[in-house]
């Protein structure tokens, strides 16, 4: 097999890359430009709401660079997990941007959309058939949870993307996909060793984050029969055996074994060798295919509606007794509203807002505290009223040693209480068996 070269412009589309590094990488003769665009890492909000993780301006700017270069060089452009959540809404949003770019730049090419929404009924049927597995979630998937689910996607493997490329797509906008698939799909379609391509995808999907120094920037991978070589696009960065090996740890639990749809990647025998000053050769990944093909479901539901208030406390007598005051304010507000759905949390910056129960420093050393009053209820207006009520109580809370009777909170904003909208939480993060890798990921092609 001839070597396949993949250019990945950045670790997540819209987070930026150096255009000079991109152009330099284009000079290395890539066969495909491929980038990941989503993750669960920013939380379930984007999945649930359908809002894009990265604003349109940034996506359009970077997609323009990629598509102009890709069409110019006659090589495909692949984007996985469009819009962050990878729902149909996200795919349509990004496909619109692609059409706009084509029109503005006068480019003609074939666009593929690949959808990843999973019909709720399909998942319910899988539950009834015993074809859903729990693996990392803290809860079991149930039909009730699926009824509450407002968005459900499946993580596609490389197969739907490879299929879109086989059908002649020049630009592929894929919905939710396993992070490495955008990168591995083209090489696998062209006959690359699957283990090497998938492992390379796991490194390239974060762009130059695996380089030294790491950053959101261009990374190039060349995959051959039994190894691959990675090199950053920017001459200001190097791939080192340490930086590349360390990336096997990033955002993953197990650096040795990583499961994907239909396969398990075994990295126990990986070797990392410095092939020249700026590139690293990686070999030794092995892949095993399961008898059945399981995909990961990701679902989101609305847990309520949030309102918040941000306030500062400077008076030492209030800081001294902040726990008692906040307990009292919470109790009073819950009593006032008599709404079982209402939850009031206080994030006390300067004490334990970041680590809460895992915070080893138990004493407050700060001369001021930041408090975020965080109210969630089934009704947005109740949450908003509760936030206003609680912050008002804190403002005028009477206690022994109360000096500033005019008001004991500093609000940086007016209005002090802000409606934050729906609170999305994960309702599914489970494995579901499918008949084949293409079953649930429809491919739609159009000529632009």
């Amino acid at each position, binding site marked *: 097999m001839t070597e396949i070269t993949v250019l990945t412009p950045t670790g997540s589309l819209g987070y930026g890359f150096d255009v000079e590094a991109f152009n330099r990488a284009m000079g290395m003769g890539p066969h495909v430009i491929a980038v990941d665009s989503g993750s669960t890492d920013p939380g379930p909000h984007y999945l649930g709401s359908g809002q894009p993780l990265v604003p349109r301006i940034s996506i359009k700017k970077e997609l323009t660079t990629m598509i102009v270069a890709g069409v110019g060089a006659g090589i495909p452009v692949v984007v996985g997990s469009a819009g962050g959540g990878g729902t149909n809404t996200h795919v349509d949003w990004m496909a619109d941007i692609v059409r706009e770019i084509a029109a503005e730049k006068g480019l003609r090419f074939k666009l593929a959309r690949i959808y990843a929404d999973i019909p709720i009924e399909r998942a319910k049927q899988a539950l009834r058939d015993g074809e859903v597995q729990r693996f990392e979630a803290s809860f079991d998937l149930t039909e009730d949870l699926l009824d509450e689910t407002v968005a459900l996607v499946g993580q596609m493997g490389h197969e739907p993307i490879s299929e879109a490329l086989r059908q002649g797509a020049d630009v592929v906008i894929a919905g939710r996909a396993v992070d490495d698939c955008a990168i591995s799909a083209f090489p696998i379609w062209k006959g690359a060793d699957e283990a090497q391509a998938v492992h390379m995808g796991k490194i390239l999907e974060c762009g130059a984050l695996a380089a030294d120094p790491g950053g959101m920037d261009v990374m190039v991978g060349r995959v051959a029969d039994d190894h691959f070589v990675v090199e950053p696009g920017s001459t200001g960065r190097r791939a080192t055996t340490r930086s590349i090996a360390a990336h096997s*740890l990033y955002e993953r639990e197990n650096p040795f074994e990583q499961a994907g749809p239909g396969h398990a990647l075994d990295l126990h025998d990986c070797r990392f060798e410095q092939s020249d000053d700026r590139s690293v050769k990686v070999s030794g990944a092995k892949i095993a295919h399961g008898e059945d093909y399981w995909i990961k479901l990701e679902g989101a539901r609305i847990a309520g509606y949030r309102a918040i208030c941000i306030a500062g406390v400077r008076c030492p007598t209030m800081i001294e007794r902040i726990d008692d005051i906040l307990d009292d304010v919470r109790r009073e507000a819950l009593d006032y509203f008599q709404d079982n759905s209402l939850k009031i949390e206080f994030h006390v910056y300067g004490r334990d807002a970041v680590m809460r*129960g*895992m915070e080893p420093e138990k004493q407050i050393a700060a001369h001021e505290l930041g408090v975020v009053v965080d109210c969630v209820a089934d009704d947005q207006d109740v949450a908003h009223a509760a936030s206003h009520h609680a912050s008002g109580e804190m403002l005028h809370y009477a206690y022994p040693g109360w000096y500033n009777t005019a008001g004991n909170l500093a609000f940086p904003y007016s209005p002090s209480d802000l409606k934050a909208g729906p609170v999305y939480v994960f309702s599914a*993060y489970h494995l579901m068996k499918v008949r084949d890798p293409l079953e649930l990921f429809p491919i739609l092609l159009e000529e632009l």
Partner: protein
Amino acid sequence: MAATAKLRDLAPVIRSKNAGPFRLTFDVLFDDQAMYEHVRDSGAFTEKSVAAAFGVPESQVSSLFHFDAAMALKVTFYRPTDQCAIGETDAYGCQQHVPLMDLEVPAP
């Protein structure tokens, strides 16, 4: 009593991050093979010692690995709250590493 050092003085990178919405993972990366092996073999970086540094039960530790290829120690917790559930404090989980910086290990 034998001299001890803090992990922050021996390892240049100590980081935390989500590993999916239900796990919190910590990486300790060394830049010196001897130092890595010293800490790895010291018996100071264990499920028990790490859990104690965070004041959580050992049962909250999901896994612990030595990853020689990257001169790295890795430990993963079940997340204290599901990511972005009510009560979330750190959506990306990337400011939970500090107790590991202060973990006491035998001085090299």
